[in-house]
Structure formats: C-alpha cells, structure tokens
C-alpha cells in the first residue's frame, strides 16, 4: 500500500476547505474542476497522490465512487477509499484478474497449509499413540492406572481443528502444558530417548 493512505481521518471535512484553499484535491485536479469546500473526495485524495485517484477513476469512475462514499458513514469512508484504491491498482496491473488473483492464490495456500497441518497432526497422534502403547506397564493398582491416563492433547487438538475446518473461524491450538506421565518422574530418564513425553 502506498504511504500516506492512513494519514487523513474521515472527520476532516474542514480539510476539504483548507485543501481547496491551498490546492485542489487530486480528484478535482484530475477532473479539472474547482475543488469546493465539502468536496467528498478531498479528505481521501490528497494532491500529492495523483495516481491514487487516477487508478480509482479508471476502474470505478468518479460517479460510482461518489455514490459509494455517500452511502457510507464518514468514519468508514477512509477505509473504503483505501480498499478501492488497492483494488483499482491491482486491476490496472492485472486487467484480467485484478485482486481476485491474490484471493485465488491465498485460498490455494490456505488449503495446502491446512492439508500439511492435518498430516503433521496425524503423525503426532500416531507417535503419541505409539508412546502410550509401548510405555504402558503391566496393570498395577487402580491409583496408578488413573495417573497413567493419557492427556489426549494431540487428539483434542485434532478434533478441534476438525471442528473448526468448516470454512468458519479457525482456532489456533492452545499452548501445550507438560504431558504428565509417571515416567517423567523417573530419575533414570530411560524414556527420554522416546522424547520423554514431557512436552507435546
């Protein structure tokens, strides 16, 4: 995004009068008309950025931009103009796809990353299950069984991802807490070779 897009706030209607007093806004310069006080373009198209309005005018047209801005409350006009300017510039650079090309690219990236994440989590579950399976000792008393119960954190995480992957909001997994298993307290550390299970 070009610099200076976020400098002007929408509540600068007085800027229109000051800019017209000092210099017409980029829109009025382009349109070769007098920049009146209250010019709807003046707060968002400063004279130092002529290309911004030129692009927006080329793709959307001054009349359409005026209608759009008039339909919005003043506090949203700055963002609207900036997004229009971004889209217009993208369309000028790529007349076929415009910014839709970026959306398509990002959608593919998101899909690819999601698949890779699912695969990695699947491997983690496989490893976690293998550890549980190989590390389970002979069944002792009830209290020991309770302390040996796995935390199920990778599976919980996998389920959470599965639930969140319906095209809605994606929830990042929580920071894992130490995986408390009885052999973590074993001073001999004979399970450390398998990762110790202390952190997932």
């Amino acid at each position, binding site marked *: 995004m070009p610099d200076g897009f976020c400098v002007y706030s929408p509540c600068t209607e007085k800027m229109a009068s000051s800019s017209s007093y000092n210099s017409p806004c980029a829109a009025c310069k382009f349109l070769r008309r007098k920049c009146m006080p209250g010019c709807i373009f003046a707060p968002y198209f400063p004279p130092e950025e002529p290309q911004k309005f030129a692009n927006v005018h*080329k793709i959307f047209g001054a009349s359409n931009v005026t209608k759009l801005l008039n339909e919005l409350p003043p506090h*949203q006009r700055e963002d609207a103009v900036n*997004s*229009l300017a*971004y889209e217009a510039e993208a369309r000028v650079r790529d007349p076929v796809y415009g910014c839709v090309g970026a*959306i398509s690219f990002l959608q593919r990236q998101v899909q690819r990353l999601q698949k890779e994440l699912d695969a990695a989590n699947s491997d983690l579950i496989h490893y976690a299950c293998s550890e549980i399976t190989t590390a389970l000792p002979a069944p002792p008393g009830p209290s020991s069984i309770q302390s040996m119960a796995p935390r199920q954190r990778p599976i919980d995480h996998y389920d959470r991802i599965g639930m969140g992957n319906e095209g809605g909001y994606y929830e990042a997994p929580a920071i894992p807490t130490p995986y408390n298993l009885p052999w973590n307290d074993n001073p001999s550390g004979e399970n450390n070779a398998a990762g110790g299970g202390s952190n997932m």
Partner: protein
Amino acid sequence: MRNHEPRASSSCAACKLLKRRCTPSCIFAPYFRSDEPKKFAKVHKVFGASNVSKILNEVPEEQRDETVNSLAYEAEARLRDPVYGCIGAIALLQRRMVELQVDLAIARARLARYSASSPPILNDHGSMIPTLAELPACGGFADCFSQISSDTMNDLSQFPYIF
C-alpha cells in the same frame, strides 16, 4: 393492431439493462447472457458499463471470459461489503495463512522431537521448516485499515472459492 414479431436473437443482459439495441458486435454479449441479468447489474453498479467495456477492450479476447468473471466476483464482494470489498477476503486469508504457518511450524517442531536422531525435517522444497521468528508477521496489510478487526472478518465462508 400491429403484430410484434419475435426477434430472431434477444439482447444480452447488458443491452437490456442499458436499454439499447444489442448489435452483433456487442462486446458484452458473449459474457453477459440474457438469462443472467444480475451479473451485469452488479458489475454495472460497481464499475460502470463504460469502464467494463474499456477493460475488456484492453485484454485479449481469449481472456475476456476470465476478466468478466473476476469483475463479477469483485462487484459481488463490493456490494456485500461496501467498505472493504475483496480486500476483506485478502486480509482474512492472509491472517489465516499466517496462523496455519505458525501451527504447522509448531506441529513439525513437535514431530522433530520424536525423531531427534533423524535429519532435520524439510518442507516440500527441501528447505528447513522456518522458525517462528522467520514467519511473516501477521497484520501488515490489515494495519492500513483502521476499522478492519477480527470481529468483522472471521467468516471465510462468505467468500466462495475461486479455484
């Protein structure tokens, strides 16, 4: 009373909306069929017929179909969200991508612990999995917009898949 004979070919959606005669060389006719009036209506409202015509004249004929489809997509997005239009989708996707990159790095770091004696895990391109510090910072693009917030931009389902 005069009998109105049916026309041999109907006007395209553009010429119907613009209330003009649809000539055989109408630039809109191949892409705005008469049975899809809303498509042109949306494009016309956002871009204007004149601008669309200029854009189509600038691109090669074989790319005009894609051009019209992307313009229709953009117009639809802008009408749904007059403030951000397609940019909302871009910001949301960028944020989602960074989140996934972070989660993937965490998952692969965990996997690496399981195979501590194995070689470092490489990605599909044979490069090392980036550390968290190397991942691009979230925001950036969205920082330029004062009102974009996670509250308003969490629903990817409103942006249909393009590919």
